[in-house]
């Protein structure tokens, strides 16, 4: 994703990933328990990685991954894509989430999620996401999530450099 970027752009992208990693994966206990890693973030886009673990197996007959870890990951990844679209940090919450299980995950392989927030209004954000195991053209799951903005709680977005640039209103 960073291949065609200058070293400066690349280090800014790395810093952004580190910031979201801390805010969404290291601080949120369930994301931490799953071991979720933020792979990339850009405006309206987010990507995450879930390493394979035996305790995520949902079907002991086949060794296939349970739906739960994928659901939690897609929820989180869609959430980050929403956070990247917020002009001012504000709390938000998942309103609904649909997951289509396109094919069983191959046992032993990590899962990558890629989410896009394609539309945001003052109260609702709309997202789509796919989960795959290395080939985006061969997804294991697809998701559509809607988020309610301005809910109770603390601001769900790390402070970004542009906040300072715009006068640091936080």
């Amino acid at each position, binding site marked *: 994703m960073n291949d065609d970027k200058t070293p400066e752009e690349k280090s800014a992208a790395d810093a952004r990933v580190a910031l979201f990693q801390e805010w969404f994966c290291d*601080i949120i*206990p*369930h994301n931490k328990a799953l071991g979720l890693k933020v792979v990339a973030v850009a405006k309206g886009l987010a990507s995450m990685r879930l390493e394979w673990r035996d305790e995520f*197996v949902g*079907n002991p007959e086949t060794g296939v991954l349970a739906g739960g870890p994928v*659901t939690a990951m897609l929820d989180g990844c869609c959430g980050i894509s929403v956070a990247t679209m917020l002009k001012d940090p504000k709390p938000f*919450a998942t309103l609904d989430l*649909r*997951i289509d*299980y396109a094919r069983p995950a191959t046992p032993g392989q990590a899962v990558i999620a890629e989410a896009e927030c394609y539309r945001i209004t003052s109260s609702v954000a709309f997202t789509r996401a796919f989960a795959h195991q290395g080939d985006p053209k061969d997804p294991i799951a697809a998701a559509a999530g809607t988020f309610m903005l301005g809910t109770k709680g603390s601001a769900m977005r790390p402070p970004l450099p542009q906040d300072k640039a715009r006068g640091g209103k936080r």
Partner: protein
Amino acid sequence: MSGQAVTSLLGRLAEARKSGEVARLAEAIPYARWMRIAPENGTGELLTRMRYHEALIGNTFLPALHGGTLGAMLELAAIFHLLWETETAAVPKIVNITVDYLRSARPVDVIARASVTKQGRRMVNVYVEAWQDDRSKPVATANAHFLVKSSDEPPSL
């Protein structure tokens, strides 16, 4: 490996039916054990409980359970319901699920009850409701489709 495992979950189902200990179904599913999600039928109806522990938290400020954990337990509640309440020759395969988040879930146990809206020959539509202390105030609901097949049918859609 898979042949032996088949006897393990469906074998456990048979065992659980004999003994009435439905909670044993969860023992065969690593993810259910990890999440502390298990079915129970102490009140005469099949319910699924997710025991609260700190790793379920998604929002430390409120605090509230992670939406993904609610989706996960609604899905498992549907699977336990299908295993227990319907004649099944295989573990139901989830096709899709839509979760509606109605309230933020507090850091206590979550209980879910599933019901079959439509049972087809190959496809089942299941509705699931999850609540905490007050059953009349659900925290999340879900609709899901599962592929089920009886043993005499070919393993295709």
